[in-house]
């Protein structure tokens, strides 16, 4: 009796396990199955191919073997379209960005992608100020092993999430539900066609969102000093690229003045830290700065904002400008001071210009300051005065 019991247990486990694998591979909720089955009203729309970048990006790099890869935060994730490189020496390209990625993780993924992709030649890596001084920066994630890919594949094909998402994928396809945001086949975060910025939420609501998100940090006495391990990761990235004969280019994407203003008034950024950050980056090779102020930052906030999804995330239009500024011959009109190669010779002038233009923007936008004050009062009436001491 017990022997039969153990056999039945084993058969159940094996049978059910195989069934799960077949279901997830056929339905393919994340669009990574080697079977590649895509049937209308069954699984053609991959509604659940979103927020799974850490899992799908290594698998797709292995499958697609791109020559060029973008690695960055949600800013690159949403704005840089690799298909713009078609026909250039960078093609084929793939957007391997991961929202909230740290520099340690960037190094880890760079190593992993390099191991998975024999054709990898160019890597564009975003450098974002919070990666150098926000809380949550750690050195973990800088090493990846083949077990990580095995773990990713298990999550994508043999997990409860995969199974539930397979069911939802079929259900939503049968219902013919409109696609929301998802990660498209180039790895870029794709908003639905009619998506536009919501001024009241994304821009006027931005101060409250930022204040809420940064509440613990604002309350603490901790200074947002530059994070040395992040620079050490940067050193390792440069070294790794050199050793593997991969050309690494660092990108600093544009910031909206609203975003810069937040750090400025909270005193934690203090232009001193920010200036220090830029000066140190200027010592690294291949750092291209797209953040100088110009018409992109000065764009009036409305329902038809062209250059921004929200104050943190530049739009695909800006992304196209960035890519065309990188590859001569790509068509896209860019402002005159759009691209600046950051180095020790240019950094001071750039810093001065940014500082002056931010001050001018603040003066020219008193209504935004009022919105910011309201947000501060709404969140913490008692400490409202304190928050303005740095203004």
């Amino acid at each position: 009796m017990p022997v039969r019991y153990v056999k039945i247990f084993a058969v159940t486990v094996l049978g059910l396990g195989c069934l799960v694998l077949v279901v997830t591979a056929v339905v393919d909720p994340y669009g990574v199955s080697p079977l590649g089955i895509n049937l209308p009203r069954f699984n053609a729309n991959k509604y659940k191919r979103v927020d799974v970048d850490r899992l799908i990006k290594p698998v797709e790099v292995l499958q697609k073997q791109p020559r060029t890869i973008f690695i960055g935060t949600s800013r690159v994730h949403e704005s840089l379209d690799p298909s713009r490189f078609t026909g250039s020496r960078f093609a084929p390209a793939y957007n391997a960005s991961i929202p909230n990625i740290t520099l340690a993780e960037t190094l880890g993924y760079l190593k992993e992608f390099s191991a998975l992709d024999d054709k990898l030649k160019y890597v564009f890596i975003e450098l974002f100020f919070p990666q150098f001084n926000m809380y949550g920066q750690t050195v973990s994630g800088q090493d990846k092993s083949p077990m990580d890919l095995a773990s990713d594949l298990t999550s994508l094909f043999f997990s409860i999430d995969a199974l539930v998402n397979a069911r939802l994928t079929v259900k939503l396809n049968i219902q013919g539900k409109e696609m929301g945001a998802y990660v498209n086949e180039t790895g870029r975060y794709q908003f639905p066609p009619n998506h536009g910025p919501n001024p009241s939420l994304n821009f006027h609501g931005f101060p409250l969102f930022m204040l809420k998100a940064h509440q613990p940090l604002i309350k603490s006495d901790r200074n947002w000093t530059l994070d040395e391990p992040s620079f050490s990761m940067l050193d390792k990235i440069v070294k790794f690229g050199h050793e593997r004969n991969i050309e690494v280019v660092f990108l600093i994407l544009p910031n909206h003045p609203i975003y810069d203003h937040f750090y400025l008034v909270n005193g934690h950024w203090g232009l001193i830290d920010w200036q220090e950050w830029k000066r140190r980056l200027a010592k690294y090779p291949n750092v291209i700065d797209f953040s100088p102020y110009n018409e992109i930052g000065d764009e009036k906030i409305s329902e038809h904002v062209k250059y921004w999804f929200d104050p943190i995330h530049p739009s695909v239009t800006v992304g196209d400008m960035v890519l065309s500024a990188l590859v001569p011959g790509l068509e896209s009109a860019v402002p005159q001071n759009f691209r600046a190669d950051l180095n020790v010779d240019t950094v001071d002038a750039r810093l001065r210009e940014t500082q002056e233009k931010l001050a001018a923007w603040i003066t020219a936008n008193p209504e935004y300051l009022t919105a910011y004050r309201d947000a501060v009062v709404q969140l913490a009436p008692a400490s409202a005065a304190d928050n303005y001491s740095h203004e």
Partner: protein
Amino acid sequence: MLFNSYTFILFFLPCVLGGFALAARYGGRRLAVPWLIVASLFYYGWWNPRFLLVLVLSMLVNAALGKYLCEAHGSPAQRRAARNIGIAFNLLLLGFFKYTDFLVFNLNSLFGSDIKVDEIVLPIGISFFTFLQIAFLVDAYRRDVVDFSLTNYFLFVSFFPHLIAGPIVHHKEMMPQFAGIRRGCLDPLNIAIGLSIFTVGLFKKTVIADNTARLADPVFLAVAAGTPLNAATAWTGALAYTFQIYFDFSGYSDMAIGLARLFGIVFPLNFYSPYRAVNIIEFWRRWHMTLSRFLRNYLYIPLGGNRLGERRRYANLILVMLLGGLWHGAAWTFVLWGGLHGLFLVINHGWRYLRERFAMPMTAGAVWTRLLALLLTFVCVTFAWVIFRADTVDHALRMLASMCLQGPKNASNLRDLLAPRGTMTIGTLLQEFGVGTWLVGVAAIAFLAPNTSVLFRNYNQALPMLVTLSDRLLVWRPTMAWGVAIGVLFVVAVLHLTHITPFLYFQF
């Protein structure tokens, strides 16, 4: 290497079990016991090989002293000295690794000094194997140890199913079993029972506890970040943690019991539906039963127990629970948690004393009074868990204030915490069921479903207790239907392994 990992389930366990079967078949106990010791040390060293030295040193010193106490013909004073040296050695080892940072921090705070020590990494499981060996030395001194042999002793301490987080087994229940390992001892019935109990534990951990943690963690993180909470959110977090820690730890214990059973070894019970307790005394007879047993036999009774009058009894209870709290971790929250439970026990014993004194009957009351008592006990335990889980006493007090409707008006609700701008999800399973349904379901399992001991009562230990309908109906047997059911549970549990989280009790 966690029990709830692919590495353990797919590689380590089959290898050790297969090796054990071969060793037992061709060498009997002579090969099987050393094989299990080597496998257990490998298991321990997987986490950090350096700490193998701590474990091995601890085992060697205790084995030497234990052997002396078991066999020596020394004077009582010499034997007492050997016992005391052993206890001091164990406590110093535990104290160094577990409490140095805490001590230095408090000394610095108290005297304004600036003593600096490098961060000391706690060897995993040290609290458990230290207690285990102290109990052994005390009993060896009392000449109360049977079947002592060095190999059995090493296996008793290092046997991987209990090494990291218990149950705190006793040499009297282990040594004879190890001595009984014989040729061809891999019994199909034990395999069937062990596999099934392990599966139930794995399901409790990966499906119930880990998903419930997705509700508890954001709430406690928000408190730590200074975010004000409304009462409903605070209660959701507190209840979620109350169920999480139960399913996490009892799940771990079931897995340990199941694993041991695969090798034909029966472990003591560690949990027995603690939230069905109708008073705190009963709660501690059902929660982490092997720790309660250790504290009672090796601390409470030597302190005088209840033999020196009521006042002394209450003082002993408080002291034992304070130390029990401190055993869980080097932080004031744990001390406070222990003290609070000590206070609950004192009130409970005081109430009993008064009822006896005024000749009020102690019989079980009507159903509604029992339900009321159960609810009161559960609420007290939940409040105490908030202190246990919080990072600091201040955070705990803020959480408790929110639960008592003292939160500010602009407090955050659960939805804000669980999905801030869509960047954090609560997991597909919780989304499928909904938070409320999930918590009700989990509570129903904790309160109404048969516990593992009751489910396997035909083949395992079970205690007489208040039985529910499901207790009567569900009895595991090695039948085809149960084979399929347990197989399904296993697959569902394994499908959750992609979110591997350590067991809560590993940190203690």
